[in-house]
């Protein structure tokens, strides 16, 4: 067989699922950047969630195995980066029992973020060796147990983490644009992974594990690879969260974030990158609209305010409705379709 360059059509169709999502995201973020600071922060928060959800998708979406343990990698990322880039003047007072190579040193936040991703990835590799042999409910409980272990160790190891107390002093460098770049980067990695040989093999095993094995796919190896990539991306989410708020706390990376990120992925549709992105955007928008409603909306001279707690109730109700009417999520596990008008404009023949 002779190698050949892909045709224009193939190239456009190939990057379309990523390109379309990226364009939508950039447009949305650009609109938000024109709004008030509060809206920009809400959008930044949503982008950080997007990093986490897309990271989670790289494993859950491609392998079809549910993980309740990914918040552990946010924790490893958040604390890992904090150890490296919190200024010495904070560490010397609040964390005076840190080993000297951390306590007396201060690294560039970018370097700290990379190291934190590596730190989480290393743990994902080690824990993945036994866990990736499991699937179904076993994997779900196994990963949840791992989350519990990471939580208890971080909450209990006072010398290293300050225990359940907040670890303050993280340099605040995450704004809307930093979060957007991170989100686009994570989407790119996710897309490259899912279209790679390893990703396609893993997706084959998702559809039919026995058949995938029969054609020579090493399911275990493919799952470990996706678990490590996924953990590193999710860890980046933890790093961003910490450097957005200026503080990390163990309860930030436990049950609450586990369920909201899984809910976002399931609502969008676990099977596609579009599902991860659209699920995050839709849930974030609904949550923010309900929050605004709680704060009160001015209609003429009248202020309509919903009772406190509406956000949680409304969000849960909306999720339930979406799942009842679209059990496979909003996207049904498909990427965004290539629109016919664009094909015509580029002179491509319709499929």
């Amino acid at each position, binding site marked *: 067989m002779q190698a050949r360059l892909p045709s224009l059509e193939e190239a456009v169709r190939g990057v379309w699922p990523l390109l*379309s999502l990226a364009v*939508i995201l950039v447009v*949305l973020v650009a*609109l*938000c950047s*024109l*709004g*008030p*600071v*509060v*809206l920009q*922060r*809400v959008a930044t*928060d949503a982008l950080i969630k997007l990093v986490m959800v897309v990271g989670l998708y790289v494993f859950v979406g491609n392998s079809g195995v549910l993980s309740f343990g990914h918040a552990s990698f946010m924790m490893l990322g958040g604390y890992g980066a904090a150890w490296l880039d919190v200024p010495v003047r*904070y560490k010397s*007072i*609040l964390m*005076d029992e840190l080993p000297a190579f951390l306590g007396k040193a201060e690294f560039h936040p970018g370097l700290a973020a990379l190291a934190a991703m590596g730190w989480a990835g290393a743990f994902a590799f080690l824990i993945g060796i036994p866990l990736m042999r499991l699937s179904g409910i076993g994997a779900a409980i196994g990963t949840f147990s791992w989350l519990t272990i990471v939580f208890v160790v971080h909450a209990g190891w006072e010398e290293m983490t300050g*225990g*359940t*107390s*907040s670890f*303050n002093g993280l340099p*605040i460098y995450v704004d809307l644009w930093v979060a957007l770049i991170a989100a686009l980067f994570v989407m790119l990695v996710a897309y490259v992974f899912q279209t790679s040989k390893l990703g396609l093999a893993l997706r084959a095993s998702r559809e039919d594990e026995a058949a995938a094995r029969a054609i020579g796919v090493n399911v275990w190896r493919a799952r470990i690879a996706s678990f490590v990539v996924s953990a590193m991306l999710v860890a980046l989410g933890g790093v961003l*969260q910490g450097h*957005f*708020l*200026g*503080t990390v*706390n163990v*309860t*930030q990376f436990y049950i609450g974030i586990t369920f909201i990120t899984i809910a976002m992925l399931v609502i969008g549709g676990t099977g596609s990158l579009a599902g991860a992105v*659209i699920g995050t*955007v*839709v849930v974030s*928008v609904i949550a*923010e*609209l309900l929050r*605004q409603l*709680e*704060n009160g*909306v001015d209609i003429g001279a009248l202020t309509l305010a919903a009772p*406190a*707690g509406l*956000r949680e109730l409304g969000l849960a109700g909306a999720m339930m409705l979406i799942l009842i009417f679209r059990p496979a999520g*909003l*996207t049904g596990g498909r990427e*965004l*379709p290539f629109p016919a008008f664009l094909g015509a404009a580029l002179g491509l023949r319709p499929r």
Partner: protein
Amino acid sequence: MLRRVGAIALAAAVAAGGGFGQAAADDDTVVVGAAIALSGFVAPYDDPHKGAILAIEDVNAQGGVLGKQIEFVTADTKSDPAQGANAAIEVLEQGAELVLVTCDFDFGSPAAITAQSRGKIAFSLCAGDPKFGVQGIGDLAFSMGIGTPAEGAIMAEWAHAQGWRKPFIFKDTQVEYTKKLADYFQARWEDGLGTVAGHDTFNGQTDTSAAGQITRIKESDADFIAFTGAAGVGGAPIIKQIRAAGIDIPIIGGVAVDGVYWLDAVPNLSEFYNVNYSSLHGDDPIDAVQDFWARYAERFGPPIVGFSVTGYAIIEAWTRAVERAGTFDAKAVALELEKFVKEPLLSGDTTYTPEWHINFDTPLMVTQVQNGVRSGIGRFAASKVPPVDF
């Protein structure tokens, strides 16, 4: 599908943009904001913001501060620390010169860090962890709370004065405050007051039962329990279980078990004591405090926690510091606050220093619960406060 989602998101973004059209302060007003829990399980601990509202009404009636009327704005953190940072931005965007934050280091930090990073003063309603200040947040962060070393010392010294000798220290590990309160109680007790009969832990946010720990209390020869839990966050059921197990020795707790809102959960509770900033039961010996509670009841209905006076005290402290500095500039106001030496405020005489932005020598009111009814006993100060250990 895509178009629909896009349209919804766009509409949402536009709607959200429209929601924040409030104008910032004009020339005649200055904005004080509160980024606190108005809903969720931390909300009872942020009740002091109502004290701030009363104080602001007083200041405005007397002509305001530096000739400006104070406008009070709030934003709900929903008891979520991460949402706290957004809430702080929300009030800062409305021009807040002072940001009141949640009555706890862990829950109040994100909002306080945000205010500090924007060069504004963050005042915690009543955080007790000494990290709330220069060391843990920054030079513009203050707390109207009493530091846990002093709170633990007052609990220990008052218990000792009652003739109680063998404490069982029951430590709640849920937040830094509840943990450190137990540690400082123990440090003060073991510094010449006696030995400890036993200790154990629970987590108020996750443990629903304390059967094992309660057996250990029974097996010890303790004659009282030092309890560091928070009544509203898992503490009340544990207290109920202690009493249901037939343990009727006195229990002494900190500020977090104050209030009347949880007493129905433990019917006929007796021999229960805790420290606090005031007594809301009509028996506080300080007239100004009595007046405060009468006005509070008139304005907001029956009071729920005795520490709501701290909110009033924050406004007193801040307006005085602003008047002395002659400006709203946060750095100048912080320097004036650092000069406070036994400054008489509604929550007690308050001292700040460049190192400590939290009180250590304010006396606290001891209140008791007997047969399910609360009453005040009297104010008590510690003669010796253990050194701060982060």
